């Protein structure tokens, strides 16, 4: 090492050091500010929300446009909407996922088209689901503003994510199991129901839980399908207000509804946190690392 070389390398070293420090500071600042904002939102919801919540709030009827009383009927409506959504979307999704994973290896043209169409479905804006649900379920099928309309609209909405997670769950079952079962002369149907589905069950359940989360979070698609009515629904053809719609209504349309909006938001976020934990737990059981987005490879 000669002297001038050392001097140059020291100058470069200083310049490099300065750049490293700048980039490090920038990256840490960005990451921490994102987390900081998230924590800000969550504590804001928790602090203002928890002040309003007691057991009575969760079960009693709503009074004075929501400024007083509870959210009992709204929790009931939300539950019913989710139920309708799941009853329709689970069989559709599991069936589609089985069809998509039917062939190991070579992707068929059919599967490729189904996937592409699901990619588009995953991107459809929620307000467009609202328009569609209103035109198709509420008006054309004559279901009106009802829990049934809302649930069916949400079923269409969660379909892509539920299919994707189910497909991942089925694919995660080691192919050796299937070969072994096939080598024993078992039929495909038997292999599916006796070998594949039991192994994939926790991951399938995780997908369902994740979809419940998506459905719970949805508002825009429900405004014009399940409607605003805050009474306890007597049948699936009654209109029912979901938690998310209730938050919107209290925050925007009811002067002085802010406190109760926070309380409802707190309940909703708590439910979603539980769902998040449940998904993580179910996935840990299977060892599947879940990174859901849209898209596949065709």
């Amino acid at each position, binding site marked *: 090492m000669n002297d001038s070389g050392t001097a*140059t*390398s020291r*100058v*470069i*070293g200083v*310049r*490099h*050091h300065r750049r490293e420090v700048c980039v490090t500071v920038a990256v840490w600042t960005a990451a921490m500010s994102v987390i900081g904002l998230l924590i800000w939102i969550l504590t804001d919801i928790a602090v203002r929300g928890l002040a309003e919540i007691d057991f009575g709030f969760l079960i009693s009827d709503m009074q004075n446009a929501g400024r007083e009383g509870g959210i009992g009927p709204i929790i009931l409506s939300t539950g019913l909407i989710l139920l309708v959504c799941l009853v329709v979307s689970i069989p559709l999704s599991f069936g589609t996922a089985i069809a998509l994973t039917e062939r190991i290896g070579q992707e068929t043209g059919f599967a490729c088209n189904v996937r592409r169409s699901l990619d588009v479905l995953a991107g459809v804006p929620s307000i467009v689901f609202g328009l569609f649900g209103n035109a198709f379920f509420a008006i054309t099928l004559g279901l009106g503003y009802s829990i049934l309309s809302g649930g069916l609209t949400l079923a269409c909405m969660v379909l892509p994510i539920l299919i994707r997670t189910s497909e991942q769950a089925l694919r995660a079952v080691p192919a050796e199991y299937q070969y072994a079962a096939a080598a024993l002369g078992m039929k495909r149907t038997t292999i599916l129901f006796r070998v594949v589905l039991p192994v994939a069950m926790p991951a399938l359940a995780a997908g369902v839980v994740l979809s419940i989360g998506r459905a719970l979070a949805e508002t825009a698609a429900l405004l014009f399908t399940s409607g605003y009515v805050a009474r306890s629904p007597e049948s699936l053809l009654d209109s029912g207000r979901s938690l998310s719609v209730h938050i919107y209504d209290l925050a925007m349309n009811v002067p002085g509804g802010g406190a109760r909006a926070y309380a409802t938001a707190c309940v909703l976020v708590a439910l979603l946190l539980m769902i998040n934990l449940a998904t993580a737990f179910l996935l840990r059981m299977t060892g599947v690392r879940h990174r859901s987005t849209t898209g596949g490879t065709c």
Partner: protein
Amino acid sequence: MLIATENLSVSYNGRTVLRDATIEAKPGEILALVGPSGCGKSSFLAAINRLTEIIPGASVRGRIRFDGRELETVFPSSVDLRRHVGMIFQQPNPFAMSIRRNLELPLREHGIRDSGELRRIAESALRDVGLWDEVSDRLEQSALELSGGQQQRLCIARALALKPQVLLMDEPCSSLDPLSAERVEQLIDSMRGQYTVLIVTHNLAQARRLSDQVAVFWTQDGVGRIVEQGETEAVFNAPSNPIVASYLSGRKG
């Protein structure tokens, strides 16, 4: 001694994979590190140029001397260290960029901005590895379009362009076809006297052909250690350790 280690140990997440490795390499000498898989040879190399820093969970103990002084004091910055101690990997790993850019990017990073000088250094590095005649008319093509052997020679050229004093090579020939492997071996042979080379290899015949010194690594009680070292011919002709004797004669490992 240009580079020497003293009781170097490497562990990953608390599990020791290499213990108390002590070696010495003179300037311009080729030192071969041989032994079965998984006995810490690659970890040993990674510890020398502090590549262990970017391996999660890795920690290193022991001393490394460079030219008789502590490596830490000679090169406090890892960036500086790696400029003077180059490394070649088992799989050729050119960047997904043009051939020229592969050579120039590290040089720019080390402060060479003048395009004439960049060009000159790149050309001489390519000549050094015998790649110039093969690629001089397509320097703007992606390096990934080269054959495996050419890619590996490009990687060596890329390392040589930085004028390192030491080159660490982790099985540089093992992923190449026999002809390319032979070319790379000749290239390493031609570097004797100019660079100090520490080369990990599974090919005992290659180690015997190439190296001046050899260190035999072996796993004992689940931990890698150096069980024998010395002049290559001496070790191959009359190993003192019975395990080494049977390994070198092809009966073990």
